[in-house]
């Protein structure tokens, strides 16, 4: 079943990606806020902080790590010609390599690779729901004076501790989590939270590449199929049909 879903997603991504070059995308408040934060910090000569929490390459949160890596890439791409570079914080050490790679690639794309420093991506120890990570990132938010903070990926309730340091001093906060408890906290602390799967399609909004647009089409198609399946199964169950 999983293979069939994956194959379908690949097919739709490829087919839709080649056809949807100028497809309009519906408005998503969280992503609009994210875009505004990315542009606004550069124009104001300030810096942005992107955190992927405990999202880890090689674990079940690898997809969210890649999606946040894309946001970090776009942030660096916009900031490459400005004075201040974004900072990325991670809790998983393999994700540190991913974050460094994305920042370096963005600078290289702008022919500014010499500006790269390994410490633009920072590792705070370690693992899922780490209070040490929350304390370290919270302290960095205060001392480094980030104008905007994007906290997306794998966060639990410790997100509240990090977010408090951002919100208390009126810094922009965009939060999301792929865990239920983290998403609940994100909704409460952020004025413009990203909800659930919005993170995974944010790349299509930030960089309208055919492949990313294909991803959006694939997600929407799978979503419609799932809804139809649930409705059909619900009706069958109501009629007493046992499958």
């Amino acid at each position, binding site marked *: 079943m999983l*293979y069939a879903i994956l194959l379908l997603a690949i097919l739709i991504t490829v087919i839709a990606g080649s056809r949807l070059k100028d497809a309009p995308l519906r408005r998503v408040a969280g992503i609009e806020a994210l875009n505004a934060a990315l542009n606004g910090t550069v124009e104001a000569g300030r810096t942005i902080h992107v955190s992927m929490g405990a999202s880890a390459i090689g674990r079940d949160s690898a997809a969210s790590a890649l999606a946040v890596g894309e946001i970090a890439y776009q942030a660096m791409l916009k900031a490459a010609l400005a004075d201040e570079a974004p900072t990325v914080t991670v809790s998983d*050490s393999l994700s540190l390599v991913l974050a460094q790679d994305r920042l370096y*690639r963005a600078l290289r794309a702008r022919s500014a690779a010499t500006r790269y420093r390994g410490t633009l991506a920072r*590792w705070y120890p370690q693992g899922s729901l780490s209070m040490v990570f929350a304390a370290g990132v919270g302290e960095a938010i205060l001392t480094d004076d980030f104008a905007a903070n994007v906290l997306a990926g794998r966060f639990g309730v410790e997100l509240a501790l990090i977010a408090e340091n951002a919100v208390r001093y009126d810094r922009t906060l965009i939060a999301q989590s*792929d865990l*239920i408890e983290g998403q609940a906290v994100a909704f409460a*602390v952020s004025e413009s939270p990203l909800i*659930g799967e919005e993170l995974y399609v944010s790349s299509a909004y930030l960089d309208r590449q055919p492949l990313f647009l294909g991803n959006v089409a694939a*997600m929407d198609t799978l979503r419609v199929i799932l809804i139809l399946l649930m409705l059909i199964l619900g009706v069958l169950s109501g009629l007493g049909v046992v499958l």
Partner: protein
Amino acid sequence: MNQQKPLTGRPERRRIKIGGALLAALSSGLMIIILLALQPIEALPADIRTGIGNLGQLLIQLVAVTAAIAVGVGLLNLVRSQARSLRRFPNNLYSLITLIVLVGIIGLRVFERLNAGSDANPTQTSLILMDTLQVTVESALAGILFFFLVYSGYRLLRRRFTLWSALFVLAAVIVLIGYSPLAGAEFLTTIREWMLTVPVSGGMRGLLIGVALGVVVVGARLFIGGDRTFRE
């Protein structure tokens, strides 16, 4: 003519490197999918199933070794970033404390290993420190979280008073009061149970299905070599 040589040479090298990375990523991904699909088939000969199991173990060991190396890289990154922060001393006292504790614990651990000798159960001061300091501090931080969450609920209503935010806070209040053991509040327990089993459970599943769809499409992007790692 001589000046153009390096320019024409570089892109070719990069193409080969990216092709290798894509090949390695795709082949290992496909291999894992095939291994996972083959493993439960009992009709396969025992030798083949053992071979599949060993190959799976090898891949897991490779990942474990890579992760262990990455922790070393992370540690170096931590030292570098904290040392860099020290330039703003005394504003960044926490960085100094982090570095002192890091060096102290590593030194203590090395000292313990050197002095362990033939003692089968040596006293591990580093572990005692971990239990008494880190666990205590983390527990204290977790305790503070409760107040942050309550304050977040208040701030949510003050800054963003919408139907959804009001519903969010109302649901939290009903669920919390629903745990009250007071006599006469039994109906709140019933409401709490209904809320947890119907709207909360439904919402949770909806969110998790959305996240799962996101994971599938990002996975699809990886499988067709569309991730930035393989394209640039």
